[in-house]
């Protein structure tokens, strides 16, 4: 009875953004199933009290921030309340949004969209989705602007440029000074100025952060920028277009010399400034309709107003930047994954081989369902993360957004190669959707940062958080003779990786049908925590060097977040009776069951250590490979005598 009511209660509270204290009281007070019957009426009554039509983050009353969700997985804690999938767009706003989306859908449904026709994109208002309403933008929050960019995501190349623009708008909205906002938002909102990130370099320097460097001239109180950036998504060269580059440059603290004084600073550079030159265009493997090129900065004079945040403070601002970039770049990937699955499904239905319909083959069915599960998880993660950003004030979703991108891109690439296995060589004919999809998937896979770096980021962020909380225990475990009590306690602990002991009661917050799935999450979180603890105990602060284990940790954490998001979403869908909700439940169950085994395998590998899990062999091999500068074995048919 009790467990059945809680998910719904949770949903109700969220829908009307009740303040937290009320929310807690309500949780305690109403434990009956009455709410189940009244849920039909309650929305309308409460809805009248709500001020409709406000969606800008400034106006919206956000709830106070909660504990970070995914970071807490590393210490074995889960915020149960978040299992209620966030509903951050009010009913009325949703209606407005839907009607706004109609022209967009119509425009992008047309097969022959010219990716170079920026004017129509401007007319559709796509550049101003997340610009605050004060500057005549639409003022959408995270969830709404992501939803509104779904139609355009059908064209990955267009989407790349637009998302990059929005990332910078997000950044300016969050950390830009009022002067900067006043200067740039009126131009950015209608696309007369298109913003884009210029962060990555073709050949990163050996010892520095960036070879693009900025120097401060104290007499003229200005900055001089020099260097070159690559892979900058630019406007098509055919039309003259003013652009705004967000440049990360290395700077030197004025009072600190040497490597200690190295810092990064984020500059906004207008393409019309003297010294900014657009360089060669990159011939990319995928997303060929997007224009990616080098940008040269040759003694560009910049004022202090063009610094985002503060000088030498780029790393702190970068956290905002990567959060939004990672979140937004997941959207085109999800859209692409959906298209690929649709094509695969259509092919399976339409093709018959040797009298058997391909869709009836068990292997095809497994392929289709695996893709479905992955996409469902990606989408749930994206909107759960965006929802948390919208719902809570200054919520820490650094890890969640990184995980969303990590999981999405990895799964997207897997899905893209599935069409090769199912369809065969035909899928790679030039111009075939499968081929284009694979190319775009590969391009997105490498876009902005390598997946390895991202996995290290996920693991390190989690370890950083866990390290601060678990330090005391780790110190005791690493010095057992000084802390015999602690060790005996551990010795007699009965929880094992096989049978973790949990008391999270996650199933209280989801539909009872999902009880096994919630159990899976509980166990996986417990196993992740055990793996983190064993890593800390074994390696201490040297844990940052154990990158193969960290990769496993990243995989485990992202799987758990996927499970969490799926269960939250499926529970909501089923409780409010969305169409095909029963199959959503099935999907969530499948994701959780698979995820549990995956996490268990990964954590067991970490537990076993590098002698048992084959890491040792791989590391030994690699040193010979580098010595031989490549493959070292001689031909199998070589004679020795």
């Amino acid at each position: 009875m009790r467990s059945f009511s809680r998910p719904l209660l949770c949903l109700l509270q969220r829908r009307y953004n009740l303040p937290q204290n009320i929310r807690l009281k309500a949780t305690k007070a109403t434990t009956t199933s009455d709410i189940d019957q009244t849920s039909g009426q309650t929305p309308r009554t409460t809805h009248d009290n709500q001020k409709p039509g406000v969606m800008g983050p400034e106006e919206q009353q956000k709830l106070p921030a909660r504990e970070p969700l995914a970071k807490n997985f590393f210490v074995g804690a889960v915020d149960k309340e978040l299992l209620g999938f966030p509903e951050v767009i009010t009913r009325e706003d949703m209606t407005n949004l839907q009607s706004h989306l109609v022209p967009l859908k119509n425009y992008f449904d047309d097969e022959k969209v010219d990716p170079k026709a920026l004017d129509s994109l401007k007319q559709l208002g796509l550049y101003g989705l997340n610009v605050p309403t004060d500057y005549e933008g639409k003022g959408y929050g995270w969830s709404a602007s992501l939803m509104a960019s779904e139609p355009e995501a059908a064209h990955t190349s267009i989407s790349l440029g637009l998302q990059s623009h929005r990332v910078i708008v997000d950044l300016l909205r969050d950390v830009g000074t009022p002067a900067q906002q006043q200067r740039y938002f009126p131009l950015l909102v209608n696309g007369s100025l298109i913003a884009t990130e210029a962060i990555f370099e073709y050949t990163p320097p050996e010892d520095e952060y960036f070879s693009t460097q900025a120097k401060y001239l104290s007499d003229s109180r200005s900055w001089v920028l020099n260097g070159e950036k690559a892979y900058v998504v630019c406007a098509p060269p055919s039309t003259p277009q003013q652009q705004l580059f967000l440049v990360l440059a290395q700077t030197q603290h004025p009072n600190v010399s040497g490597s200690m004084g190295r810092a990064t600073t984020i500059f906004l550079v207008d393409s019309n400034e003297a010294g900014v030159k657009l360089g060669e265009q990159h011939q990319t493997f995928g997303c060929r309709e997007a224009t990616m090129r080098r940008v040269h900065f040759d003694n560009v004079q910049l004022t202090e107003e063009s610094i985002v945040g503060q000088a030498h403070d780029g790393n702190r601002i970068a956290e905002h930047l990567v959060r939004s970039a990672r979140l937004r770049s997941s959207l085109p990937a999800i859209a692409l994954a959906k298209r690929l699955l649709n094509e695969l499904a259509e092919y399976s239905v339409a093709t018959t081989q040797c009298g058997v319909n391909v869709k009836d083959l068990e292997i095809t069915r497994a392929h289709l369902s695996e893709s479905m599960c992955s996409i469902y998880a990606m989408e749930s993660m994206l909107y759960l993360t965006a929802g948390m950003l919208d719902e809570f004030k200054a919520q820490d979703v650094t890890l969640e957004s990184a995980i969303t991108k990590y999981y999405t891109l990895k799964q997207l690439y897997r899905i893209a190669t599935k069409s090769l296995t199912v369809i065969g060589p035909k899928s790679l004919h030039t111009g075939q959707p499968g081929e284009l999809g694979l190319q775009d998937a590969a391009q997105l896979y490498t876009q902005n940062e390598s997946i390895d770096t991202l996995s290290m980021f996920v693991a390190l962020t989690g370890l950083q958080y866990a390290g601060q909380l678990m330090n005391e225990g780790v110190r005791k475990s690493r010095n057992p003779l000084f802390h015999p009590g602690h060790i005996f306690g551990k010795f007699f602990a009965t929880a094992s990786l096989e049978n973790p002991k949990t008391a999270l009661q996650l199933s209280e917050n989801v539909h009872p049908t999902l009880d096994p799935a919630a159990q899976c999450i509980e166990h996986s979180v417990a196993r992740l925590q055990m793996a983190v603890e064993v890593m800390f105990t074994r390696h201490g602060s040297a844990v940052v060097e154990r990158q193969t284990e960290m990769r496993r940790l990243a995989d485990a954490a992202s799987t758990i977040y996927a499970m969490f998001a799926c269960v939250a979403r499926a529970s909501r869908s089923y409780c409010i009776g969305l169409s095909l909700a029963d199959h959503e439940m099935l999907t969530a169950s499948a994701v959780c069951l698979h995820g549990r085994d995956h996490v268990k395998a990964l954590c067991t590998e970490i537990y076993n250590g590098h002698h048992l899990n084959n890491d040792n062999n791989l590391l030994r091999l690699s040193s010979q490979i580098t010595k031989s500068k490549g493959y070292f074995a001689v031909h199998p048919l070589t004679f020795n005598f």
Partner: protein
Amino acid sequence: MIRRMNCLMRLHGIYPNALCQRHAPANNRNYANQTGTPDDERAAGGNQQNSKNRTGGGGSKSLPVVRNPFTAAQEKTKGSYLTMVEIFAGRDVHRRNHVEFIYAALKHMAEFGVENDLEVYKALINVMPKGKFIPTNLFQSEFMHYPKQQQCIIDLLEQMEDNGVMPDYEMEAMLLNVFGKKGHPLRKYWRMMYWMPKFKNLSPWPLPDHVPDDTLEIAKLAVKRMCTVDLRSQVSVYETKNVKDAVDDTWIVSGMSAEQSKLLREHSQKKALYIEGPFLIWIRNRRINYFTLRADPDLELLASLDEQERQIDQDDVTNIEVPFFGRPPPRRHNQLGKVRSVHQQEDGTIFAICATGTSTKDSLLSWIRLLEANGNAALGGIPVLFRFTSTVPAKAVEIEGASEVPVPSDSRSKQNVRKSKIVKFNLI
């Protein structure tokens, strides 16, 4: 054990004279006529002892001395060597004195340059008559049938092993035909075939199949071998004639890595560099002199790096850094971006190594100038000193410090001194 003792006794104690004397009347053989000189005999190796015994034991001057055809050969090539073996084999069906012949042949292999040639060894084994030495009963096989012949081939195989010549299956067949499957040479052969292939490729620095004879090529091999400590090392060959004012016209093989260039850039201009040497490195049987460019160790830095490492609290996991934007993931020892490189040793920092064609001071000076011209501009401002452990041949003009020493008569050497002061140090 018994077999071995038996073999030794028969070889050294009991039979030799008898065996030799049996061959003594062979004065009509071409390798046993009187033209042989005492010198030849001394060189004749295996059968030298026998022939002396023969002449001495016989006590008669009319008895012939066994002539060794290998010392008399005019043309010392593989072809002539094989021809001699062929002539011997074709002489008569009994092939008398073949053991002595084989010992003599083995002794002279290096002169003909065939000590690494399997074909030659096979030709020598082929000299042995087939079938005769195969034991026919248990006792024969147990008590080393024909010990002298067996020992001869065992010695031949031993020489092959010493020279790293790997036998092949044809040799096995030949040995089978000569000694049968219980023969001791066969056992030796099987042991060789077990171990030699395993050892053949064990060297971490394999040399090419035919080690080149050119000193430059060997110097390249030597420098490359030493440079394997740093995978980024580049070995470059310079010509001194490209250097202005160089006296010697020779080559320089120089090995340096990007890491070393970086260390050199960061080296203080006030601290001198030393060219040390000559040190030795052996490439198979060739010796190469090489020199290092090095500086005294920066003890302070090393200590601070060690200190840094010691101060890291391994148990403290509260300060884990998270990188942004694809920077290399952090290492715990790398908080300041400084790691001790393999070139920074306790006794000094090594910046480059080289071998020159002449190993003279002049060529070493050219080396420094070439390094400076090839991406190490920092060398221009750092004093470079010689510190030799043995006398370096003074082929080139002496190199003196311009400021301290009166200007030498040769104006060239004055120009050689350049900006940096080069002082000659001869420690030994």
